[in-house]
């Protein structure tokens, strides 16, 4: 039986992957029963559509399709991993909205749609119900980033009248002001210093797994890869500033995490520090740095969602006042959760045999090549993060066995499958990294060439004195 041609069209597949979770969110909100099943069906549809998109994408141009697939899989995993007490209609609907808007942001080539997706992704976190953090900083961080991004888009559209991202490539739309606003949006959204505190607050007082999904949409890195790098060749001398900020954040937050005893905040700092490395890699302008950043994007996303998920399971089983200030000895009650936690955490900080080792290796090479002195801070930050993670692991899982438990507290079968999938991803990805790295190396080369083409374009336009011809398609 042959598949109709329209089913395999890119526009249909993209629409299907985005519409399925949104539609399911509406159904879940109205129906309020079997919410986990409905969520799983919607995310499975997104996964199938994203897989077809990846399959159809030409080599070197499948970054966003791959990210769509990854995020869909992660959302499915998160829904399966949710403890029953968290699986309410509002929560599932919220993360389905987040999934749809994230996929929309990855797939769109339109500025206004990107802005819409950006805002829509934070809408669940503005609700006063289950999603909203009890602290003010997450709200300020997310709203500030949205306002800065909206102003940047407004400036770009007002100055050029063009809303198509491919048509704006290399034209420096909106000048330094638009560039600055975009950087501010990235800084707030990613929690780059000094705005890092909202991330920890969100993790501490918000819903843990949805917050992990929000952070791992990596909208800040998306903005850098999709807008800042290709659109602003005239401001390339300012790019290193973003890199320095990212490296400083990685180190600053790593040091900050050393004294942290709240497991939620500690994990948030680790995730933030490691994800800041993505920005420095993207900006490194070397093929290995960019490829490392793209692979690290995968590692950070999978690992941190897994870690936050395990932490939530521990909270549900052992109480919500877990602390890293003393040994809790949970490994004897939940050995499989302990092992999964260890593997995912060590992958996050670059243990050999995991995909994290490959991404760190590439990142360090790329960043040191472009910034020999500041790049040195990256392995230092990673080493400190490794120490903080190991401290958290030992405090949570090792130590004297707790008494008073008569119930099995280890991973349930459905949780085991999700955790096994994440662990196998980071381990097999580490043993056979070429399947992932080669795909991203092609994309890295494309991005790298885009940067260098932008530089050439800049030199040419400097000579000709005409940099704003938007009728001509940009050189790619």
């Amino acid at each position, binding site marked *: 039986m042959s598949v109709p041609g329209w089913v395999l069209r890119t526009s249909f597949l993209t629409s299907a992957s985005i519409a399925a979770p949104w539609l399911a969110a509406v159904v879940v909100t109205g129906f309020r029963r079997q919410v986990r099943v409905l969520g799983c069906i919607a995310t499975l549809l997104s996964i199938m559509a994203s897989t077809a998109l990846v399959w159809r994408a030409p080599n070197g141009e499948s970054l966003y399709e791959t990210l769509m697939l990854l995020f869909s899989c992660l959302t499915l995993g998160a829904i399966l991993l949710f403890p*029953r007490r968290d699986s309410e209609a509002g929560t599932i609907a919220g993360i389905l909205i987040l999934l749809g808007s994230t996929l929309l942001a990855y797939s769109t080539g339109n500025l206004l749609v990107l802005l819409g997706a950006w805002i829509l992704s934070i809408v669940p976190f503005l609700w006063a119900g289950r999603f909203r953090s009890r602290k003010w900083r997450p709200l300020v961080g997310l709203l500030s980033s949205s306002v800065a991004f909206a102003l940047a888009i407004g400036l770009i559209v007002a100055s050029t009248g063009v809303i198509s991202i491919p048509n704006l490539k290399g034209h420096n739309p909106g000048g330094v002001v638009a560039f600055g606003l975009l950087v501010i949006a990235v800084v707030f959204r990613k929690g780059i210093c000094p705005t890092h505190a909202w991330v920890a607050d969100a993790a501490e007082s918000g819903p843990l797994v949805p917050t992990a999904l929000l952070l791992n949409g990596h909208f800040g890195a998306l903005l850098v890869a999709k807008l800042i790098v290709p659109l602003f060749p005239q401001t390339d001398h300012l790019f290193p500033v973003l890199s320095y900020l990212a490296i400083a954040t990685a180190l600053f937050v790593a040091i*900050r995490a050393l*004294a942290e005893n709240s497991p939620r*905040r500690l994990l948030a700092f680790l995730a933030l520090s490691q994800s800041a490395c993505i920005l420095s890699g993207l900006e490194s302008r070397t093929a290995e740095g960019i490829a*490392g950043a793209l692979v690290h994007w995968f590692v950070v996303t999978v690992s941190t969602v897994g870690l936050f998920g395990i932490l939530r399971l521990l909270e549900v089983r052992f*109480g919500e006042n877990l602390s890293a200030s003393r040994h809790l000895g949970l490994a004897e009650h939940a050995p499989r959760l302990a092992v999964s936690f260890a593997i995912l955490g060590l992958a996050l900080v670059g243990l050999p045999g995991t995909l994290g080792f490959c991404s760190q*290796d590439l990142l360090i090479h790329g960043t040191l090549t472009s910034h020999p002195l500041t790049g040195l801070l990256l392995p230092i930050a990673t080493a400190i993060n490794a120490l903080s993670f190991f401290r958290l692991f030992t405090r949570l899982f090792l130590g004297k066995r707790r008494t008073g438990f008569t119930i099995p507290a280890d991973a349930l079968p459905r949780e085991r499958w999700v955790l096994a999938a994440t662990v196998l991803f980071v381990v097999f990805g580490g043993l056979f990294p070429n399947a992932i790295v080669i795909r991203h190396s092609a994309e890295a080369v494309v991005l790298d060439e885009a940067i260098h083409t932008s530089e050439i374009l800049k030199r040419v336009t400097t000579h000709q004195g005409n940099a704003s011809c938007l009728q001509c398609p940009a050189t790619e």
Partner: protein
Amino acid sequence: MNAFQDILIFVVVAPGFIFAVFALLWLLDWVPSERLLSWITGLTFATCTSGVAALVWKIRSASNITVTFGSWFAVGNYHFPLVLMVDRLSVPFVALAALSSGLIGQFSATYLHRESGFLRFFLLLHLFAFGSLLAFAAGSFDLLAAGWEIVGITSVLLIGFFQRRPAPVENGLYVFGIYRACDIGLLVGIFAMHHWAGTASFDSGFPTLTGARAVVVCLLLLLAASGKAAQVPFSGWLPRAMEGPTPSSAIFYGAISIHAGAYLLLRAQPLLAQSVLASSLVILIGAATAIHGTIVGRASADAKTSLAYATLTQVGIVFIEIGLGWRWLAVAHILGNATVRTMQYLRASSMLHDYHQMHSAIGGQPSPTGKQIEDLLPEKVQLWLYRWALDRGHLDTIIERWVIAPLSQLSAYLSRQDRTRAPSPTTIRHGRAVQVSTAGPAQRNN
């Protein structure tokens, strides 16, 4: 690919494969019996040792055996070479790793009988053997670093083997911190080789570096080697590592792990020979460690710590030999030291038992025999040295005061800036109470 290349692949991969299979089976809820586990371990390492014997026989007539798998991953001009190689330098280390892992496996089958972490110990032993064989049989510094890190993490996990006691767990954390800090030298050193020489492989000649670049790379590798070999000023972690089970102490701190740093320097000898500064520093560090080890070891109150410092003294001397360029003397010294120390570690527990029996039989302590060399020193100097040795050369104090404390204070300061509060003891106590009382509802809700 000839038979010897196949053997080399088998020797390196077999322990890793066994680890992966048993770990996967454990995740699927199947726990092997002690008998089966020890039997398979024995078989694996016996086969590996036979394989290494074949490699040794081949190496007599060939300069090296190399297996090239291509690149582990490659981007642009950078690639991570996946090359296994044994030559006359690495083959003794490969043999030592395979043989001692097998012996420790057999010893532990009895020593850890009915211990709750029996399976965990054997899994980590296999993973450690894989890491060390990978490091010694690597054809490039990149691959060596991968094996090096695996050795590090297994070492730390085995220090915390007795996980119910807080002390081993905290000591494991301390060792992990030192390892990670020093491994930065290895990572950046490898990057520098790639950046300046275009390669970090040594399967077909050593990366060509001269002048200041050679010195920088040597110093970075020396940092990594010093951390792994517990050289001054990083020696403080070694006595802490003695918290692990005796068989793991024997293989890690008597035989393999402690000598991995020396192996790294031996590997980098062509580079080291070009730099007087780096060679001198290696000698200086080695001499300081040897002196430190012998003094502190004399004031150590327990058998394993004394043995650890005895090992440290010898490794310090090995560093001096490497710095002086006496490469083969260093290799022979390492092999001898590793063999003797492993035997001493394994014998330590039963020897103490024998001593107790002997004391009971003779009705007291035997009269001391012989003279100590420190008796030649003035009494004041003896006392000063004793105090110095009791605090293990103040090395831990220095690191805690000048590295850990400032970092902790900075972190606490940043924490205050974030206006967050660490959980109070009340909260923690409350947390413990909640843990018990919420177990029922948690299960119901889950």
